[in-house]
């Protein structure tokens, strides 16, 4: 026996444990229906793997764990899955949550299962996985999945394993009875844990009010080679709190915000030990537990071995409930438990006690009175907090300050509220403040997350925009480059010859003018008979040769430049100009010839030859032009035909609507007219009507043709559906605007529109239905 230390505070409420320890653990008749909640602890809810109507056997896996902190669920008995859905669960909120409801077939037939013969020879991880698959969770309070605690040895050095057998809360005797009757199972479980965690020391902490249990444990421990101590601690609430028990047994305080494993200690409940033993040695998953049913309102307070999922009503029946005496049904102990309203709430892995209390036993809470700052709450607080201060902060909604005063170290044991002379429900205030802070933090996290997403989206949009811009720029640049590239060879091919051509043209023109001048001077000299005729004639001859030469050069250059131009395909414009130029030249030459003929001047032959040459040239140019343009018109005609081919429904529709408006207008005008004019107008109207009818017919025919085509190709159901939905939306929108408008005129037009929209929607719906049924 080692030394027992002390923790701060604590209280000594009436124990009320004797009532339920008189009888051994009882067996319950098999309940008709069992409700197994998917979430029985902190962490993730398990995910069901059975279907409604499926037959399950006892111990069959019905929901598997999701994520690390989660526990598997097994069918507590054989039967049929009735439903998977909301059912009242043991939770302070009184809300419904998803449960798997199993209707028992009364056979209680086990699924095939077998234990592990030599667990010591097994891989450590495999053994832990086996425990996880058996759905073992802490059976003391929070229901923390045991496998997670077993993995603590991976990254922590654990030297002490503490088995929590204190069971400090009044009324509860489930662990006490378990130790009395199944001490060997508990020791067996400790052996398995010892093998897994390999601590240097195991301490079983037990309160001194369980003499019988201490005795049986000691007997079971006899001859055990492991270093296991049973440490009896004085009875004081809440010595069963994990941190308080550690302080009691080792005098080490678990730092705020840390877990016991951080200081080398792992704590496990005795109930969990027995569950681990059964899981490993018999392969039985956690499907039942010991539950204390007590309180003044039951005739036979007793502990029962209850299947997980057994409704409280069945337990109360087994303990002979006095309906009329029942005032309050409490789940858990009187200090930390919660009042439940519904007796169909099922037993879960952490349900250790059900108290059916009479009014005298648990009277309604006295009205809250003002805090008198007596300081008694501080005296009893096992976590060494300042309950009074926390109360003020929670009441004033100053949650930040409450947090700074270590609100989250509060274990909600209720000692402060128990001693409070003003009957202030202190724990409720702390719970309220804690959940407010948690919600706020969750909201803050969500807001940060939303901001991140928003910013990421903004960045993405920005990036997309920039990319688009860059692509556009690149495209523009490329286009510019391509254009330049196209221009450059053109310039190099045609630029210089063009220049040359121009120069040559000018030169030829100059030469011709010179020739003309020389001719004129010669003519003038001849007429007057003065001057040096021979000299003038020589000058004329030289001018003639130079003009001829210039013309020849020009012709050559022109034919040269025409050739590359011809390569690019027939340049119609150029050809046209060339033909026109040729024709003008021909005309001019003809005129000159006529003139010369009438005047009887010299060089007629020469002129005639020129005219002939020009004629042939003009003919050639004309021919070339016609050829080129002929080819072109063929092309364009082809493209026009292809455009005209599909019936332009839209244009037709437009036409029809134009006609309709015209018709309407004329009809309106007709009303104003009288007499002869009227007759005329009527005639005009008639023709208009005819035209409208024709246009309408054409449009309808075109539409029908398209529809037929669509039908032939298979109707696009999706499109129809979309059209129908849009039509419906249009109808609702119109209805809404109709509701809003009050003007009679606007209303009338809206109503007609609405009617039209409705018709359309109906039609579309009809067709849609037809097609769908087809």
């Amino acid at each position: 026996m080692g030394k027992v230390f002390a923790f701060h505070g604590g209280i000594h409420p009436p124990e009320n444990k004797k009532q339920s320890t008189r009888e051994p653990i009882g067996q319950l008749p098999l309940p008709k229906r069992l409700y197994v909640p998917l979430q029985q602890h902190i962490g993730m809810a398990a995910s069901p793997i059975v279907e409604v109507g499926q037959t399950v056997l006892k111990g069959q896996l019905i929901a598997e764990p999701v994520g690390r902190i989660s526990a598997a669920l097994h069918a507590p008995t054989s039967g049929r899955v009735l439903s998977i859905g909301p059912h009242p669960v043991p939770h302070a909120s009184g809300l419904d949550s998803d449960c798997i409801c199993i209707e028992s077939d009364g056979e209680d037939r086990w699924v095939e299962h077998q234990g592990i013969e030599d667990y010591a020879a097994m891989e450590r991880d495999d053994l832990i996985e086996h425990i996880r698959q058996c759905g073992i969770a802490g059976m003391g309070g929070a229901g923390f999945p045991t496998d997670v605690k077993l993995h603590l040895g991976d990254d922590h050095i654990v030297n002490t394993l503490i088995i929590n057998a204190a069971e400090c809360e009044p009324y509860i005797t489930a662990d006490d009875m378990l130790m009395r009757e199944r001490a060997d199972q508990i020791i067996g479980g400790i052996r398995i844990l010892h093998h897994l965690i390999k601590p240097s020391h195991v301490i079983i902490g037990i309160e001194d009010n369980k003499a019988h249990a201490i005795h049986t444990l000691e007997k079971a421990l006899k001859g055990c080679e492991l270093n296991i101590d049973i440490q009896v601690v004085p009875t004081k609430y809440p010595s069963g709190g994990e941190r308080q028990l550690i302080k009691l047994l080792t005098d080490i305080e678990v730092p705020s915000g840390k877990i016991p494993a951080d200081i080398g200690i792992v704590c496990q409940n005795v109930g969990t030990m027995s569950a681990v033993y059964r899981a490993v040695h018999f392969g039985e998953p956690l499907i039942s537990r010991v539950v204390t049913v007590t309180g003044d309102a039951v005739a036979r307070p007793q502990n029962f071995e209850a299947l997980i999922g057994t409704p409280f009503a069945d337990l109360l029946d087994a303990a002979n409930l006095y309906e009329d005496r029942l005032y309050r049904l409490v789940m858990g102990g009187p200090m930390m438990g919660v009042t439940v309203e519904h007796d169909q709430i099922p037993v879960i892995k952490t349900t250790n006690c059900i108290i059916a209390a009479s009014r005298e036993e648990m009277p309604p809470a006295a009205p809250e009175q003002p805090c008198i700052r007596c300081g008694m709450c501080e005296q009893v607080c096992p976590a060494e907090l300042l309950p009074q201060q926390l109360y003020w902060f929670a009441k004033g909604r100053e949650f930040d300050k409450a947090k700074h005063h270590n609100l989250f170290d509060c274990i909600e044991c209720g000692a402060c509220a128990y001693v409070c002379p003003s009957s202030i429900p202190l724990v409720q205030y702390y719970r309220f403040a804690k959940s407010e802070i948690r919600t706020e933090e969750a909201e803050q996290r969500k807001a940060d997350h939303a901001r991140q997403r928003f910013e990421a989206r903004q960045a993405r949009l920005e990036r997309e925009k920039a990319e688009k811009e860059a692509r556009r720029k690149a495209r523009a640049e490329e286009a510019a480059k391509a254009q330049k590239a196209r221009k450059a060879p053109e310039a190099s091919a045609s630029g210089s010859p063009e220049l040359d051509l121009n120069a040559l043209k000018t030169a030829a023109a100059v030469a011709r003018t010179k020739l003309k001048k020389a001719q004129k001077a010669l003519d003038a000299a001849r007429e007057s008979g003065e001057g040096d005729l021979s000299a003038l004639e020589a000058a004329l001859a030289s001018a003639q040769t130079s003009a001829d030469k210039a013309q020849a050069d020009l012709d050559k250059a022109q034919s040269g430049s025409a050739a590359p131009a011809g390569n690019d395909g027939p340049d119609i414009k150029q050809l046209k100009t060339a033909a026109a130029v040729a024709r003008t030249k021909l005309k001019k030459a003809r005129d000159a010839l006529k003139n010369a003929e009438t005047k009887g001047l010299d060089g007629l032959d020469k002129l005639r030859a020129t005219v002939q040459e020009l004629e042939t040239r003009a003919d050639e140019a004309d021919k070339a032009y016609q050829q080129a343009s002929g080819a072109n018109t063929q092309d364009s005609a082809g493209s026009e035909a292809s455009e005209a081919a599909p019936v332009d429904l839209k244009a037709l529709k437009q036409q029809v609507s134009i006609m309709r408006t015209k018709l309407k207008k004329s009809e309106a005008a007709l009303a104003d007219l009288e007499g002869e004019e009227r007759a005329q107008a009527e005639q005009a109207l008639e023709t208009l009507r005819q035209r409208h009818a024709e246009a309408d017919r054409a449009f309808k025919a075109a539409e029908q043709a398209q529809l037929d085509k669509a039908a032939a190709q298979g109707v696009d159901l999706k499109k129809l559906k979309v059209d129908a939905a849009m039509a419906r939306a249009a109808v609702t929108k119109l209805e809404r605007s109709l509701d809003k408008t009050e003007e009679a005129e606007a209303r009338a037009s809206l109503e007609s529109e609405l009617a039209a929209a409705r018709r359309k929607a109906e039609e579309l719906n009809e067709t849609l239905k037809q097609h769908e049924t087809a």
Partner: protein
Amino acid sequence: MTTVITAILILFGLAVVFGIILGYASVRFRVEGNPIVDQIDALLPQTQCGQCGYPGCRPYAEAIANGDAINKCPPGGQNTIEALADLLDVEAVPLDSEHGEEKPKMVAFIREDECIGCTKCIQACPVDAILGAAKQMHTVITDECTGCDLCVEPCPVDCIDMIPVETTIANWKWPSPAESPSLIATDLGRGQAQQQEAV
């Protein structure tokens, strides 16, 4: 006379030295951006709903930093106004009803058989919480939805509903202990009598 000049010179010298130190510090320890905007932005609920009249929470935070009213954020409600008042050391005013009223937390829900797959809501969602593609049914990622309402208007077939977030065991909160009338010790009996009557 020399003492006066010495004193002036010394003071001048000190002024120059400190000036240099301050000048260096202002460059070396320069704070990028406006830190108060970040602090305000952290308090806003980040729904990006635009009910305040600004295109998102950050622009509103900037506007507040420049002296705009702090009561234009309906999604944040009174809690946000109080937090902002606390941060900026101004009076907490009630929510400006012109910008909307404080509503319970909502989440968008798409009636999937009516969705025509137009992607308009996807483009409207500021936090990319809607999943879908053209001509494919869309759906809302409930965990990411901020309940900003912005997707409801663009839907051509009105198939988006804003539904209040359901209270489940996961998000249930302990209620505040009922505010009982404050009694003094001598009132105790009367209070109990009242309660008994009620029972």
